[in-house]
C-alpha cells in the first residue's frame, strides 16, 4: 500500500449504509497522485454514494474514516450544477471565483469542450449534452490552474457525450493523472485507456 502520507484521499474501514441496506463494509483505499480509479458495480450498489462520500457531501450512514488531503477537489455529479438563466461564461466565472481559478482560461476551456461559439448564450437554450459539457469545462479550468494535489471525482462523466467527446475526456483524464493529480470516476463503459487503472468493484462485482 502506498504510505498514507502522500495520499490525496485516505479511506480507512469505510462502511456505507443507505435506506437500511448495507452497501459496503470495511473498505480501505488510498488514492495518491497519479492514480486513476474506476468504481464499477450494478445499479444501486452504492457507486454514487461512495463517490459523494469521498467528496464529503454524504455523511449519513457512513462509518469509518475518510481523510481528504488535496488542494483542490472537483465533484461532477449527475446534475450539471449550472444555472439555466446564466450563460456558460457567467457559470464558469462563478466557479473560478469559488475554486480560485484564473477566469482568463474560460474561453479556452469552452473551446476544448466544443462550446466556443456559445459562451454567451443562456444555458437554458443549450441541449442537455451541451450543458453537461459546460460542467466538463470545469475540468479544463482545473487543469489550467495546475493545482499540484488536485482530485477529480466524476459521476458517470460519459453520459450524453458523443464519441468525440468521450475521447477528449479520457485524454484529459490521462493528462490529469500524468500531471500528478488523481481521478476517481464511476462508469458503466469500459475505459479505452492504456495507463494504469484501479478498479473498485462494488456489490460483489460482476
Amino acid at each position: 500500500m502506498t504510505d498514507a502520507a502522500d495520499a490525496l484521499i485516505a479511506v480507512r474501514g469505510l462502511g456505507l449504509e443507505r435506506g437500511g441496506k448495507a452497501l459496503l463494509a470495511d473498505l480501505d483505499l488510498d488514492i495518491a497522485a497519479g492514480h486513476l480509479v474506476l468504481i464499477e458495480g450494478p445499479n444501486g450498489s452504492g457507486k454514487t454514494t461512495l463517490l459523494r462520500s469521498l467528496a464529503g457531501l454524504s455523511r449519513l450512514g457512513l462509518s469509518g474514516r475518510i481523510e481528504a488531503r488535496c488542494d483542490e477537489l472537483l465533484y461532477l455529479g449527475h446534475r450539471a450544477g449550472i444555472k439555466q438563466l446564466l450563460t456558460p461564461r457567467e457559470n464558469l466565472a462563478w466557479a473560478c471565483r469559488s475554486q480560485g481559478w484564473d477566469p482568463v482560461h474560460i474561453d479556452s476551456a469552452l473551446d476544448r469542450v466544443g462550446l466556443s461559439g456559445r459562451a454567451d448564450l443562456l444555458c437554458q437554450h443549450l441541449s442537455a449534452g451541451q450543458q453537461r459539457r459546460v460542467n466538463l469545462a470545469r475540468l479544463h479550468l482545473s487543469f489550467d490552474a495546475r493545482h499540484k494535489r488536485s482530485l477529480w471525482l466524476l459521476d458517470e462523466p460519459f453520459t450524453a457525450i458523443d464519441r468525440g467527446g468521450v475521447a477528449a475526456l479520457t485524454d484529459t483524464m490521462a493528462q490529469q493523472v500524468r500531471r500528478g493529480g488523481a481521478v476517481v470516476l464511476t462508469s458503466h463503459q469500459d475505459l479505452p485507456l492504456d495507463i494504469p487503472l484501479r478498479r473498485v468493484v462494488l456489490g460483489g462485482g460482476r
Partner: protein
Amino acid sequence: MSNQPPALGAFLGASLRRQLLLAYRRPVDTINPLLFFLLVVTLFPLGIGPDPAQLAEFAPGILWIVALLASLMAAEGMFRQDYEDGSLEQLLLSPQPLYLASLTYTAAHWLVTGVPLTLLSPLFATMLQLPVAALPVLLLSMALGTAILSLVGSIGAALTVSLKRGGMLISLIIVPLYIPVLIFAAGAVRFAAEGFDPAPQLLLLAGMLSLAVALAPFAISAGLRISVDAG
C-alpha cells in the same frame, strides 16, 4: 502556481451578483411578494370596514403581519432552484467558507424581497390610513425587521429544501421564530402612530438583527449540509 486561498471578498461579491442577476432575469420572483402584499392589504378594509379610524388603529399590525407572510412565502423557494440543478452541491464543495457564502443567499433574498417591501410600505400604509407621522418609523422598522425575517426564513428554507412538501412545513417551524420581530416592529409603528417614542423597540429590533446575522448562518450552513446529504 498560485496556491494561496482564493480571494474571499471577490467570491462573496461574485455570489451576491450572481443571485441578483438570477433574480433580475426572473422578475416574477421579485414581483410576487409585492403583489401578495398589495392584494392582502386590500382585503383588510373589505373585511374590517373602510372606517379610517378603525383601519388606522389596526394598520401597524396589518402591515407587519402581511410583510411577515410575504417574506415567508419568498423564503420558501430560496435554495430550491439551486438544490434541484446541483449548484447547491457545488457551493458546499467550494473551499470558501459556507458560513459567509450562505449569507450571500440571504442578503440577495433581503435585497430582492425585503427592500422592495420596505420601500413600498408607505404606499400600503397610506391605504390603511396610517398617520403620516409614523411613516419614517415604519420604514426603519421594515428595513430592520425584513432583514431578520430573511435570516430566520433562510434557516427554515435550508432545513426544508430537500423535502417534497416543504412549503407548509417551513411556516410551522419558522413563524414562531418571527413572533418577537412582529411584536417589536408592529409595536414601534404603533407607538409612533400614537405619538410615543418608538426608540426602545427599534433598538431591540437592531439588537435582534445583529444576533440573527451572527448566529443564523451557522444554522443555515448546517441545514444545507443536511439537506444536500439527505437529498
